[in-house]
């Protein structure tokens, strides 16, 4: 679960990190008032969207108090913002962070992730911030310092100190950076994060300030932090994907017209690849999970049936814990409830396959059973092209 910049800053500020003065605004007038309250010549307006690359996309604007602040705010508020990370449809901007403009002496980078290979929390730091870490890794690989934290010992002062002194020679600055690192680490640990990033972390005079921050919570750890659900901004997430998640399904919208239902994430990905290999375009990734119930299968079918882009439904199930008869019942129920006659290609295999096959045959519904996965995928692609 992604957090907005303002939320990320709030979590860090609570743990002692300095952030620019500012406030969150939901309409242009509020924005004007907020800007005036900062009593400064210039302010920065930052659109709150779940996507990087905001700078290039014009989602961050430094404006002078001479300008028409309301107009500038209105240019973004309520609009959809397209950045290199949002996809062409963009993401809606419902809130604007209005902040003071700080004098910048130095821009640094600090990020924390959980590294897969070592299975350790890894702190990445660079004295050159303000660009994204991938660019940094490409352009100045020897200016990124990574430090791993012992999983049982936790973050020690000396590790934070070693990083801090690589970013600054000044004791005054380094001491503040140490505190920032500790705050980031504690946030990461306490909230089961998958990313805590401050970029840039700036030196402004004698102060160290987090100019931008990005926190992502790991979905698997969310059950420990139910209070964080209140911070979920549903407007930033696809509504179909959201409702699928609520049903216990894993669904991702794609651009094609072949609706897919598969059990297991790996098999689901392989199914998309196979369809694509045969020249088709899947409308979605949809994993009903290893042990889905009749209800869940029905819900999955409904999501596809509700999607008017879908020309054909391709079911690929290798029944293990999920029995083929349960699957068949769920599919049949959903098809009967819906009055649309969408063609269904089903390749089912595994536990109770015979019962499942018989149920489909006896249903009288337009479900075509094909034993070979390859043939089934080819057929789905053909059907999608002809419908």
């Amino acid at each position: 679960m992604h957090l907005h910049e303002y939320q990320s800053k709030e979590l860090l500020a609570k743990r002692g990190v300095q952030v620019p003065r500012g406030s969150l605004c939901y309409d242009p007038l509020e924005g004007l008032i907020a800007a005036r309250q900062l009593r400064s010549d210039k302010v920065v307006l930052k659109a709150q969207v779940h996507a990087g690359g905001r700078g290039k996309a014009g989602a961050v604007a430094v404006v002078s108090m001479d300008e028409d602040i309301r107009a500038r705010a209105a240019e973004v508020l309520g609009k959809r913002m397209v950045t290199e990370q949002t996809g062409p449809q963009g993401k809606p901007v419902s809130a604007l962070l209005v902040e003071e403009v700080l004098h910048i002496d130095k821009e640094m980078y600090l990020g924390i992730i959980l590294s897969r290979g070592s299975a350790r929390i890894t702190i990445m730091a660079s004295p050159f911030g303000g660009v994204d870490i991938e660019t940094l890794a490409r352009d100045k690989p020897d200016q990124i310092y990574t430090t791993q934290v012992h999983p049982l010992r936790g973050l020690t002062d000396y590790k934070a100190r070693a990083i801090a002194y690589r970013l600054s020679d000044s004791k005054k600055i380094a001491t503040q950076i140490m505190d920032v690192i500790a705050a980031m680490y504690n946030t990461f640990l306490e909230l089961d994060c998958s990313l805590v990033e401050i970029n840039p972390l700036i030196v402004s005079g004698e102060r160290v300030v987090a100019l931008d921050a990005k926190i992502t919570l790991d979905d698997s750890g969310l059950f420990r932090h139910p209070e964080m659900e209140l911070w979920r901004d549903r407007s930033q997430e696809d509504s179909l994907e959201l409702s699928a998640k609520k049903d216990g399904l894993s669904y991702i919208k794609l651009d094609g017209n072949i609706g897919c239902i598969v059990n297991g994430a790996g098999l689901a990905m392989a199914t998309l690849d196979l369809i694509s290999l045969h020249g088709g375009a899947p409308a979605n990734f949809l994993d009903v999970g290893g042990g889905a119930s009749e209800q869940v299968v029905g819900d999955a079918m409904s999501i596809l049936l509700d999607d008017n882009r879908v020309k054909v439904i391709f079911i690929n199930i290798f029944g293990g814990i999920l029995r083929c008869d349960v699957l068949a019942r769920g599919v049949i129920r959903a098809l009967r409830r819906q009055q649309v006659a969408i063609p269904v290609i089903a390749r089912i295999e595994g536990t109770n396959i015979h019962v499942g096959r018989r149920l489909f045959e006896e249903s009288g519904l337009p479900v075509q059973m094909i034993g070979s996965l390859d043939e089934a995928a080819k057929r789905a692609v053909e059907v999608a092209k002809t419908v």
Partner: protein
Amino acid sequence: MAILVNRESRVICQGITGRNGTFHSLACRDYGTKMVGGVTPGKQGEFVDGIPVFNTVWNAVQETGADVSLIFVPAAHAKDPILEAVDAGIQVIVCITEGIPPLDTASVLYTVREQGRFLIGPNTPGVISPPEECKVGIMPGYIHKPGPVGVISRSGTLTYEVVDQLTREGVGQSTCIGLGGDPIVGLGFVDVLKMFKDDPQTEAVVLIGEIGGSAEEEAAEYIKAGFGKPVVAYIAGRLAPPGKRMGHAGAIISGGSGTAQGKIKALEDAGVTVVQNITQVGTILKDLLG
């Protein structure tokens, strides 16, 4: 022979009195596995269809000589049972549980590795050695057939798909292992490849990877350095959009790394036969070994 689990493995189930624990303990026993006990605190003295239940893994190990454990416990409490298994001397720990917070997995993994034990998973279907009639996991046993192919995968049902193809083509398996679909898991491709290399029964390996992380790239590097047995690979997720989690918590392309294309290239550079069409794995292996 096979690897990790075999005819001699003495297996317990942590969480045996739960619905899944009971179901799969009995299914494993039906397949041939020596299910010697189970653990549910407070239920020592009871039996699950003849399998004795103990309060602690320590008691179970003392009484049954168990060396393998199959874990079914809720994600919120999975850390402690894994540590308990390690402390009690269990060598191979198979954790089926899905949705364990990665920081918890990372924490236990430290101890697992420090103590030189093997953790399979979490979020894995488990491990099965058909020639040894030993299954420790939730995979459907009947699709397997004893034979010379080792299978390693980050995905459950995709493994079933491949195993089913192999069996239909008459190609049996030595050991099939699901590594688990989480970003942080115990055994990785390289660990298992090393075991397959030393296993005389394994003549070829099927490696099923997916997007996210760099486990496949590391496997490629290891294979390139001289694995010595043919490897056929399939990488799922060529169509996956960056930044989207494809079901598995580990299957996510971020910052341009972890793409299927990168993995396929690395594996091909290492001399691995990378299959584009998942449905051809069975026939390719048949040709290879035939």
